């Protein structure tokens, strides 16, 4: 197989793309954040509800537009994040996203894959005051 290609488009990814989980808005979101890949036009908004101690992620929803990789990744991430701690979210990296997707992501598509993860992390960072509030929108850069 080549570096890229439809190996990426396994049933699970297509399923999440066509039937995104947790798609929509959470009115009681603790924080909301939006991000995009300017070059691709992918865009994702994530709503996250934390528990009262603000330590554990209770519910997540997303909405957005873009390629199958970015949208499926967001959909799968909403499931994965449920029940995770904020600390665990902060530690997620590119490898975790690729593991979650369960396919090889070609180097040129990795930005699409990690967008949702970045949006969730930046949203949390901004909420907890660790990031410049100016940075009102996230750009995937790896």
């Amino acid at each position, binding site marked *: *197989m*080549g570096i*890229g*290609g*439809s*190996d*990426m*488009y396994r049933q699970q990814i*297509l399923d999440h793309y*066509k039937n995104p989980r947790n798609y929509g808005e959470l009115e009681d979101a603790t924080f909301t954040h939006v991000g995009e890949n300017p*070059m*691709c*036009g*992918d865009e994702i908004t994530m709503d996250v509800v934390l528990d009262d101690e603000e330590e554990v992620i209770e519910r997540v929803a997303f909405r957005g*537009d*873009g*390629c*199958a*990789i970015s949208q499926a990744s967001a959909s799968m991430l909403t499931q994965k994040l449920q029940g995770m701690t904020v600390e665990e979210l902060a530690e997620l990296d590119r490898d975790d996203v690729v593991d979650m997707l369960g396919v090889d992501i*070609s180097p040129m*598509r990795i930005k*699409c894959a990690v967008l949702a993860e970045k949006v969730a992390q930046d949203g949390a960072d901004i909420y907890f005051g660790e990031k410049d509030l100016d940075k009102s929108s996230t750009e995937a850069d790896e």
Partner: protein
Amino acid sequence: MGHSESTLLDVERIREDFPILQREFDGQRLVYLDNGATSQTPEPVVECIADYYRTTNANVHRGLHQLSQEASIAYEEAHDRVAEFVGASGGREEIVFTKNTTESENLVAYAWGLNELGPEDEVVLTEMEHHASLVTWQQIAKRTGATCKYIRIEDDGTLDMDHARECITDDTQMVSAVHVSNTLGTINPVSELADIAHDHGAYMFVDGAQSVPTRPVDVEAIDADFLAFSGHKMMGPTGIGVLYGKKHILAEMEPYLYGGEMIKKVTYEDATWNDLPWKFEAGTPPICQGIALAEACDYLDDIGMDRVRRHENDLAQYALEQLEATGDVETYGPPAGTERGGLVAFNLESVHAHDLSSILNDSAVAIRAGDHCTQPLHDKLGVAASARASFYVYNTREEVDKLVAAIDDARQLFA
């Protein structure tokens, strides 16, 4: 190579000069349809490059030894060859070697625009400009207080020439238009635009990145004041671009890059400038790349640029028909039946262009997906991205069929 009198291209013979076209991925032969981004390089050009380093390599202009003389003459004559290729009767003095089309645009924007534009002045562009001219003039305008205006596009992907006549006024100093749109395939009436520009005392800059590689272009017939194009899109190497400029305009322009070769006299206090075109080629130029570009001109002229043009249009029309026949593919630019550049940008209804490109890659079909450096045009078209198949002399109708079949695979996968 030598081609018969026939008006048709001998594609099989041409393909032999491009070993890269024999590459296979997973047992499938490469179908290279990304020529609008960069063309492949024929053996005579590759050999010219290797020969240069093996036999002639030396710095130019000033060396009195044999190698430097050989390299200098070859490099200087490459300017003449390129001048001839685009019909510049002024020869080398009208041809500046840059690194790409983008730098050619910036050269004029910096050397002329930054010095000549002011708050009362206007630069007129088209809505289908490539970022190379759009961002450049937009930013230089911002710095000088000048205004950018954009000539509207009609629904069929052609320029609204009435709007062009409205936009271009006596305040207009520069009209910059893409000759063949790299997204729509539209062939713009640059000669008519040049007439309008000149009626108002403005200069005409033609972005020839997609036209010079694919059709006969005669700067003097167009009456362009400037023309920019890139070697890597016309069978030449990367790292070389061209700026054609009318001699009297280049002669009056301030220099752009400063350094060696572009000067005449230098003291600790000041400097004077060299003759054309060297005044605009500071430092050690892309010597090998310039020589190889001249070789690419030979290769293309040997095929015949009119043959190239017809082959381009033929494949584009065929692709357009095949794609439109599917029912769920939207294509952009002039409709089938209107001559266009050898490219078609499109979207498959159910599949994002990036996914489509990734899936096509599985069938070894190489297309481009994205905004093709025309983001504002894509915004106007209402899409974030599109897929684009772009053809060159070595492509065939069978390859278009493979493209269409691979699109069908994607359609099934996402159904």
